C-alpha cells in the first residue's frame, strides 16, 4: 500500500473507533460516570501532550501548564458569558489566548539556559491564580465562576457531546503532533533536546523552534482548559494550582518523555487510578511524587521505554495486517502514532 493510501485507511479506522465509542456512551453501555472520568482523562491527555512537546521533545522543563489551562478555561467562559460567543469559537479563543501568554513568557526566557523556563513557568502558574482571584468581574474571584453554559442542556446528550468533542480534539492533536514530529521541522525540535549547540551548527534556529514549540504547547494546554470550562460548568482558581501542573508532568514522565503513545496511555491510566484511589484521600498525594522519583531514577524513559521507545503506529499495524502485498514501509518508525 502506498503511504498516502495507508494514511487514508488509518484516518477511517480512527473515525470508526471514535464513532463506536460515542455510540457506547450514547447507549449508556459506558455509563455516565465512566464517560465523565474518560472525558476528564481525555482533557488531561491533551494538556499532557502539549507539555510533552516542550518538555519531552524539546527538552525544556515547563511547570505551569495548569496556568495555561486556566487561561484557556477562563477565556472561553468569559467569551461565552460576557460576549455571548458560541462555544466553538470561544474554545479556539481560549486556546489562542493561552498561546499568546506562552509566546510572551517564552520570549525573554527561552534565550537562556533551560532551567529558567521551569522557574518562570512555575511563577506564571502561581501568579495567574492570584490574578484570577483579583479579577472577580471576569472570574468570580476566589468563590469561583458558576453557571458557565455547558455544551448542551439536554441531559441525555450532554455526556455524549462532551466525550465526542474531547476525543475528537484529542485525536486531532495526536495526529497533528505526530505529523509535526516526524517531519524535518519536528526533527529540528528534537535535535534541540539532543544537543543545542550541534543543532545550531546544523543550521537550525534554536530560539525560533523553542518559541514555536512552547507557543504550540501553551496553545494545546489552553485548548484542554477551554474544553474543560463548558464541560464542567464551574471554574475556581484553586483548580489550577501547582499540584495540577505537576500532575501533567507525572503523566508525561510516566508515559515516557518524548513519546506520544506513552502520554495517552499514562494520562488515561493515571486519571482512572485517581478515581479508584479516592478512598486513600491525602495519601494519594504521597503516591504521585513517589512515582516521579522512582520513574526518574529507575526507568527514566517511562513505560514506553520498556518497549524500546516505539510509538504505536496504525500505519505499521495496517501494513502488517495487509501482509499479502509486501510494502516498502519502514516498520520501525521512531516517532509516529496514528498516521
Amino acid at each position, binding site marked *: 500500500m502506498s503511504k498516502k493510501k495507508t494514511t487514508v485507511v488509518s484516518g477511517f479506522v480512527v473515525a470508526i473507533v471514535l464513532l463506536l465509542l460515542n455510540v457506547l456512551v450514547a447507549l449508556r453501555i459506558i455509563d455516565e460516570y465512566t464517560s465523565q472520568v474518560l472525558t476528564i482523562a481525555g482533557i488531561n491527555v491533551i494538556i499532557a501532550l502539549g507539555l510533552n512537546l516542550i518538555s519531552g521533545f524539546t527538552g525544556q522543563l515547563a511547570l505551569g501548564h495548569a496556568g495555561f489551562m486556566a487561561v484557556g478555561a477562563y477565556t472561553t467562559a468569559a467569551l461565552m458569558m460576557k460576549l455571548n460567543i458560541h462555544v466553538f469559537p470561544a474554545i479556539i479563543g481560549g486556546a489562542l489566548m493561552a498561546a499568546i501568554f506562552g509566546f510572551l513568557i517564552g520570549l525573554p526566557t527561552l534565550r537562556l539556559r533551560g532551567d529558567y523556563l521551569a522557574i518562570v513557568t512555575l511563577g506564571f502558574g502561581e501568579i495567574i491564580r492570584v490574578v484570577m482571584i483579583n479579577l472577580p468581574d471576569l472570574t468570580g474571584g476566589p468563590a469561583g465562576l458558576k453557571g458557565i453554559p455547558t455544551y448542551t442542556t439536554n441531559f441525555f446528550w450532554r455526556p455524549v457531546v462532551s466525550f465526542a468533542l474531547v476525543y475528537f480534539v484529542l485525536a486531532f492533536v495526536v495526529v*497533528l503532533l505526530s505529523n509535526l514530529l516526524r517531519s524535518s521541522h519536528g526533527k529540528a525540535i528534537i535535535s534541540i533536546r539532543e544537543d543545542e549547540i550541534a543543532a*545550531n551548527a546544523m543550521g*537550525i534556529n534554536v530560539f525560533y523552534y523553542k518559541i514555536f514549540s512552547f507557543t504550540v504547547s501553551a496553545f494545546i494546554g489552553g485548548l484542554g482548559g477551554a474544553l474543560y470550562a463548558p464541560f464542567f460548568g464551574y471554574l475556581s482558581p484553586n483548580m489550577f494550582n501547582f499540584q495540577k501542573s505537576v500532575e501533567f508532568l507525572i503523566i508525561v514522565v510516566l508515559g515516557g518523555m518524548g513519546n506520544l503513545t506513552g502520554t495517552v496511555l499514562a494520562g488515561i491510566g493515571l486519571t482512572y487510578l485517581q478515581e479508584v484511589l479516592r478512598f486513600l484521600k491525602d495519601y494519594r498525594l504521597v503516591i504521585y511524587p513517589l512515582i516521579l522519583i522512582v520513574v526518574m531514577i529507575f526507568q527514566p524513559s517511562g513505560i514506553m521505554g520498556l518497549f524500546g521507545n516505539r510509538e504505536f503506529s496504525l500505519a505499521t499495524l495496517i501494513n502488517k495486517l495487509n501482509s499479502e502485498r509486501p510494502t516498502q514501509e*519502514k516498520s520501525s518508525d521512531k516517532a509516529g502514532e496514528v498516521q
Partner: protein
Amino acid sequence: MTVLKTENISIQFGGLMAVSGLNLDIKEGELVGLIGPNGAGKTTIFNMLTGVYKPTNGRIMIKDRKDEVQDIRKLHPYQITALGMARTFQNIRLFKDLTVLDNVRIANHLNVEYNTLDAVLRLPKYYQEEERIEEQSMELLKIFNIEAKSGELAKNLPYGEQRKLEIVRALATKPHILLLDEPAAGMNPQETQELMDLIEYIKERFALTILLIEHDMKLVMGICQRIYVLDYGRTIARGTPAEIANNPLVIKAYLGKEMENDA
C-alpha cells in the same frame, strides 16, 4: 579567490588571551591545516568562525553561496551555516538518541522546502521533499560507507564511524566551506589513511574549501596545501608543509614538544 578571511581577530576569556591577532586567508578550493600544541587555541578559532564565541575584536569575512562577501562576526551559528560554512566537533556532538539517518536528515534542515503546515497536514509537497532528503542523506552515508547502519542509533556506532557521521552531517548542510575539528582523533593509522582519502574525495566532489585542525602530523603534512601553526593563541608560522617542517620556530614550539611527549 579568498573565501574565508579573518582580520586580526582576538578573543579573551577573563584575563586569558586565548587567541590574539589571527589573520587567516583561505582561497577557494584550498585544503588548509591548523596545527599547534594542546591549548594553542585551535578549537577556539573554530568556535569564533562558526559564531559560537564572539571575538573580542577583529573581523571575519566569508564568501557566501552567492559569492557575496559577508561579515559574519555578529551572526548566530545557524546563520553562518546557512551562508555555507559547516563544521564538525572535536568532542563528537551527534544527536545520540536519534538514528544515523535522522542525524543526517536534521542537517538537511536548511534545504527543506516545505513549511510546518505542509508537514502537519501531510500535503504532497511533504512527501516529495522527505523522499528527496532521504535519498540525498543515504547517498552521503554511502560515500562514507555507513549507509547500512542508517537505522541504528548514533550512540551505538563505533567511535570511528561516529567521527565519519559528524562529517556526513556537516556535508548535509551543503556547505562550500568545511571546518573539520580533529577528524582522525582516536583512529588507527589504517583508518586515518582511509579518512585522508575520503576527505580529498569529498573536497573534489562537492567543490569544498576545507580548514582542518589535526593533531596527526602525518595526516596534515600529507594532504594540506598550506598550514598555519599556532602557539599560545598566536600564529607562529604559515606556509607549505615543507616550509613548516623546516621552520625552526615550529620545531621548537610544536614538534619539539610533541617529540618530548612521545618519548
